[in-house]
């Protein structure tokens, strides 16, 4: 009994020792694995940090370069602007006339503005005015008799109940037409009328139908004669005559004067 107990105790002790050594070995293996993994983790962390640092460096360099590119782009734009300006300057300064060309639209717009300005001026200052002394037809005295009213109703063939209203209409129309002013320019100064007739030959017809158009026509004709047909406004008549003679002489060579000048300049340069 005792020996059996001892054997059993030995057996158990041996089994416990085996279990202990097994778990110790197991623990030591796991510990080593842990230590290795931990070391690897540290290494990887270090690696990550260095990569992050590198990335930051790259980013800052990228930003630096991007800023530099932007600055270069800006410089390129500035230089292009300078080149454009220089080209324009060269183009303008080497032109024989020394001025930029004026486009046809500028003339069209200028003329339209002038025309509208003139119409506006006439309307503002002469819309309410009267041309000539006005004569009023006095026919209403002749038409004013009572018998005439009867004639009207009979002639128009309207019923007696409608006679009053019809008469009202007829008389209104008659009054309006008879009281319409008719311009009479005969009392105006003869010399002035002669000048007016030269500038606006149809003035008599226009005065009665459209005085605004007549005044516009008058001023336009004066502008054409004194301004647009002048050789160059500001030159005295002698100077203008002299220039005209020179231009006529040069034009006799078959080309417009400015072309001749251009050819001369081109030869000289």
């Amino acid at each position, binding site marked *: 009994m005792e020996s059996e107990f001892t054997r059993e105790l030995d057996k158990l002790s041996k089994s416990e020792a085996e279990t202990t050594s097994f778990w110790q070995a197991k623990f030591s293996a796991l510990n080593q694995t842990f230590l290795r993994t931990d070391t690897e983790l540290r290494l990887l962390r270090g690696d990550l940090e260095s990569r992050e640092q590198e990335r930051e460096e790259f980013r800052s360099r990228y930003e630096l370069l991007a800023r530099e590119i932007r600055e270069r782009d800006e410089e390129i734009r500035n230089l292009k602007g300078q080149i454009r300006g220089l080209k324009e300057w060269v183009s303008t300064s080497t032109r024989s006339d020394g*001025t930029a060309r004026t486009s046809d639209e500028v*003339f069209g717009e200028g003329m339209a503005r002038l025309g509208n300005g*003139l119409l506006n001026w006439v309307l503002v200052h002469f819309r309410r005015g009267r*041309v000539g002394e006005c004569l009023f037809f006095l026919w209403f005295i002749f038409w004013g008799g009572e018998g005439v009213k009867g004639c009207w109703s009979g002639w128009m063939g309207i019923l007696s109940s409608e006679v009053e209203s019809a008469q009202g209409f007829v008389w209104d129309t008659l009054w309006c037409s008879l009281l319409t002013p008719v311009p009479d320019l005969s009392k105006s100064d003869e010399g*002035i009328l002669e*000048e007016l007739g030269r500038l606006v030959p149809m003035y008599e017809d226009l005065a009665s139908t459209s005085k605004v158009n007549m005044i516009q026509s008058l001023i*336009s004709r004066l502008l054409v004669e004194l301004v647009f047909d002048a050789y160059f406004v500001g030159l005295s008549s002698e100077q203008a005559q002299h220039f005209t003679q020179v231009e006529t002489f040069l034009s006799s060579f078959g080309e417009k004067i400015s072309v001749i000048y251009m050819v001369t300049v081109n030869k000289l340069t």
Partner: protein
Amino acid sequence: MTLNILKREADQRMQKETANIVDAVVQKVNTILDAITDIRATESRDQALKVLVSSSIELSRLLVVQRAVFKVIMPEILPHQRIMFDPSTMEDMGGEDEDNLEERELCCVTFPGIIKRGDESGGHLQYRNVISKARILCSPE
């Protein structure tokens, strides 16, 4: 070139002659209109007219210095002469449809137009281009 020199110097050196022309136009307009209308000239009316005349002088100088030939046209309508509406150079101010204006007689030219001959370098004088149409009024049918 010569005309460009004149144009450059015109503002300073031709002030007197230019002012004379402006005054001459205004005075002529006033003489005629004072005689045929019942409205007398006023300072503000003259001033507004002077601005218009000065603008037309500026425009005329600009036209003269171009290499192309610019001509300001204003047809003259004489009694007993038939001048017909030309849609290519005229613009009716009566508000009528242009299709109805063919073969219609002119009654009044209210404002001149501009015709250009030649290109911008002064060559090809056979080319003709209407820059601004003359403003006219047709006679009633």
